[in-house]
């Protein structure tokens, strides 16, 4: 799927799987029992998985599993592992239904030749959509194994059961056949024909149990391979010559100094100018010797003026949600509260930069790329070189973090162009500086809110104008009968690339909404917790908030200079409530997070340990955007270029974080990688207000902004 299409989906709520035609992948399969499954057959899973009847989006998840002749199981999925832990949780779901141990399962991920099509790993879609499919396929495989065993043992299927890699005659410890015996010499290919029997929570042996990541061993020994760890015979390293200002056009190239670098070769293809060399540091130095005259685009806005620029420039809007009547809403409100909220550009700043290693052989291209979209990369490369998609092979590899930033694959296109022109295997690893320029940043945004409350403390009016952040997660879960949510956007409004950043838009809009809910509560002298409980319409959200408040000890007394802050949100099907405690140094304006509790209703929790790690990770990362992270720029001149001027959360800035989940083991599993992060900004902003009275309406909440907002 193309990046722009993903962006469109990513900034809104994706509530059903993405559909595509099934690919031809069966011919290369070896022997064993193979179950293929496509989401077009998902109606079989009604009641368990997500509803599929909604919009006619081209979404699909295809997967298959193979019980091999040795009894081990391969699971093939186009998803990738970037730290979110699905290499473990999907294996868990499969092992549960197939009745094997988790170490019998080999996950084959993100390889375009071996795995069926997948739209990409983003949007917290895996556990919501891939997990039920894999369970169904595993349950089907289990039934096939029992059928074969029935013939061999001469027992009817109802007398048999699958346990730990064998089929047993019920009640007998000795009459059994191992899966390896049942699959020997067979090739059975099936897709789902009927609704399989999927286990209920009470029968789970592996799902719902905490499992240590199956890839941990490779990662602690340095053996885990990332795309820059691939070394090919005769490979050269590429270094691209970049302009200082984003969007500059090449006018002239002076490569006369290249002669000083023995073995360096110049590669030119339109605005792409690069040097290759068999040693990476020589390639980098040689690239620096090339002088290019660039024509830079004119600056239209900078870090400070961008918000007014949005408001002045973007006039078109679409209505996302509306209800009641704004005029009577206004008239019947005792108190009207109005405010603007701002959020700056943020980088993904994954520790691994974008990288691709690739080679052409007989007009076929093989690529190891740090990408969240292997099939999207395949298509992009095939389109670039006008070659058939099946001639581009994107291979499985670990990613050193993604967070939405590796949906876009410019580095793979650049590497492949250089490989094509040079005729050599090429590795291109972006430097940190390139990363800070060609990363597609989380967009800056302006949010304008007007709320009204009646004399019973009930929200009566909610007007929400969103500039650039998207509508994901903004469907009102507060009961405000008179409401209007509008989305303002314009193509090419940003001075550089922007894109999806962990729970796109939802961090920004949740910060604004939850700050404003807090301000509205304070405007009528109500406690923010009480005000929220008074105005929420969804019982599940109320229960999640209460769980957070109880776990946090919301009524416990605060120390001097400390404050508590609440934020609620919804993302990828999961409900989130965060309560934070911060200490504010009133003389410097510095905010120190002390404690954070995150409660989530995420349906069934497949791997409680993995879910905790994801949630804690999201909260930790979220503290960065809330308190420290902001890209400084003037037009396309990105001034933030290193980790030195892009601070984010470190060891010493991480508070104690407690994660709790609603007990919903019989419900469908929901998103886990993104949701928690959305509430961090609001919970911190509200805690800062509680601690010192400073209402900071712009993220990051820097000491300077806290001091400026401090009441006199």
């Amino acid at each position, binding site marked *: 799927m193309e990046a722009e299409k993903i962006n469109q989906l990513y900034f809104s709520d994706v509530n059903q799987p993405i559909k595509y035609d099934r690919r031809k992948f069966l011919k290369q399969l070896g022997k064993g029992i193979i179950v293929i499954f496509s989401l077009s057959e998902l109606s079989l899973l009604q009641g368990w998985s997500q509803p599929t009847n909604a919009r006619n989006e081209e979404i699909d998840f295809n997967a298959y599993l193979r019980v091999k002749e040795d009894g081990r199981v391969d699971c093939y999925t186009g998803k990738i592992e970037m730290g979110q832990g699905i290499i473990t949780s999907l294996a868990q779901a499969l092992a549960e239904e197939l009745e094997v141990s988790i170490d019998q399962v080999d996950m084959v991920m993100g390889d375009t030749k071996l795995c069926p099509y997948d739209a990409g790993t983003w949007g917290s879609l895996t556990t919501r959509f891939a997990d039920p499919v894999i369970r169904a396929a595993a349950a089907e495989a289990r039934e096939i194994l029992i059928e074969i065993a029935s013939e061999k043992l001469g027992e009817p299927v109802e007398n048999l059961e699958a346990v730990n890699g064998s089929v047993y005659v019920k009640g007998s410890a000795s009459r059994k056949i191992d899966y390896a015996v049942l699959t020997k010499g067979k090739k059975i290919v099936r897709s789902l024909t009927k609704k399989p029997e999927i286990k209920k929570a009470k029968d789970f042996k592996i799902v719902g149990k905490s499992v240590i990541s199956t890839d941990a061993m*490779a990662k602690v020994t340095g053996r885990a391979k990332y795309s820059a760890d691939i070394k090919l015979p005769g490979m050269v390293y590429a270094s691209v010559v970049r302009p200082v200002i984003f969007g500059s056009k090449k006018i002239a190239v002076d490569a006369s100094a290249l002669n000083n670098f023995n073995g360096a070769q110049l590669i030119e293809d339109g605005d792409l100018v690069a040097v290759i060399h068999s040693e*990476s*540091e020589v390639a980098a130095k040689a690239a620096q010797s090339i002088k290019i005259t660039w024509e830079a685009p004119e600056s239209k806005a900078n870090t400070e003026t961008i918000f007014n620029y949005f408001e002045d420039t973007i006039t078109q809007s679409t209505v996302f949600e509306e209800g009641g009547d704004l005029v009577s809403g206004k008239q019947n409100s005792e108190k009207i509260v109005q405010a603007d909220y701002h959020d700056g550009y943020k980088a993904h700043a994954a520790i691994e930069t974008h990288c691709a290693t690739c080679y052409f052989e007989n007009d076929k291209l093989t690529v190891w790329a740090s990408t969240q979209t292997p099939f999207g990369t395949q298509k992009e490369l095939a389109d670039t070189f006008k070659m058939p998609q099946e001639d581009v092979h994107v291979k499985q590899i670990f990613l*050193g973090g993604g967070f939405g930033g590796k949906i876009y694959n410019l580095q793979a296109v650049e590497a492949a162009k250089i490989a094509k022109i040079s005729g050599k295997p090429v590795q291109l690893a972006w430097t940190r500086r390139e990363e800070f320029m060609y990363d597609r940043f989380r967009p800056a945004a302006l949010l304008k809110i007007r709320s009204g409350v009646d004399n019973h403390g009930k929200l009566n009016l909610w007007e929400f104008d969103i500039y650039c952040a998207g509508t994901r997660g903004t469907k009102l879960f507060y009961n405000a009968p008179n409401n209007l949510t509008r989305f303002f956007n314009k193509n090419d409004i940003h001075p550089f690339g922007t894109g999806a950043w962990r729970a796109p838009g939802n961090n920004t809009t949740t910060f604004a909404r939850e700050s404003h809910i807090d301000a509205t509560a304070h405007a009528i002298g109500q406690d923010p917790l009480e005000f929220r409980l008074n105005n929420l319409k969804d019982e599940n959200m109320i229960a999640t908030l209460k769980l957070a408040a109880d776990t946090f000890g919301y009524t416990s007394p605060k120390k001097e200079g400390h404050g508590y802050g609440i934020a609620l949100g919804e993302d990828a099907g999961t409900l989130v409530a965060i309560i934070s405690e911060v200490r504010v140094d009133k003389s410097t304006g510095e905010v120190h997070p002390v404690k954070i509790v995150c409660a989530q209703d995420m349906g069934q929790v497949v791997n409680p340990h993995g879910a905790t*790690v994801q949630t804690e990770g999201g909260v930790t990362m979220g503290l960065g955007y809330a308190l420290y992270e902001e890209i400084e720029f003037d037009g396309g001149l990105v001034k933030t270029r290193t*980790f030195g001027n892009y601070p984010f959360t*470190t060891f010493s800035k*991480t508070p104690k974080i407690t994660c709790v989940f609603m007990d919903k083991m019989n419900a469908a599993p929901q998103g886990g990688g993104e949701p928690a992060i959305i509430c961090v900004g609001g919970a911190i902003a509200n805690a800062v207000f509680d601690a010192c009275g400073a209402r900071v309406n712009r993220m990051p909440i820097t000491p300077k902004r806290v001091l400026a907002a401090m009441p006199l």
Partner: protein
Amino acid sequence: MKQTIGFKLNGKKVTVAINGDESLLTVLREYLDNTGTKYSCGLGQCGACTVILNNKTAQSCMTYVDQFENADIITIEGLANNNELHPIQEAFIAHDALQCGFCTPGMIMNSYGLLLKNPNPSREEIISEMDVNLCRCGSYNNIVDAIETASEKMFKKL
């Protein structure tokens, strides 16, 4: 002109031909195929490339030939004893102190350097010493727990 230099890498003497201005990170990854040590910032601001040089931690992206020639260097590849994991590696697994795993080798090597000079650090000392290492996935609290566990195990053996 290439020059041949030597140093000890994970207990074994190695010789390598270099130009003379490369970082140790490039020598390890590119010339000696030890890719466990990672590049991330190239400026000593993230700790992903941390190795042990003469019993002290060093950020290999900022370490040059005058420092590493004839030195004794340990990288993530040299921590396990044959197939037996080092207690720090074991503790990182037990606490699931990693997500994407890209910062993990640097985290483990900095922990190793910390425990070499201070076998029984307090939680505050761990946080202070590890603060130069960045993890974008947010595994910090689990990493501190892992280092505490490793320290307890190693300290008892002393």
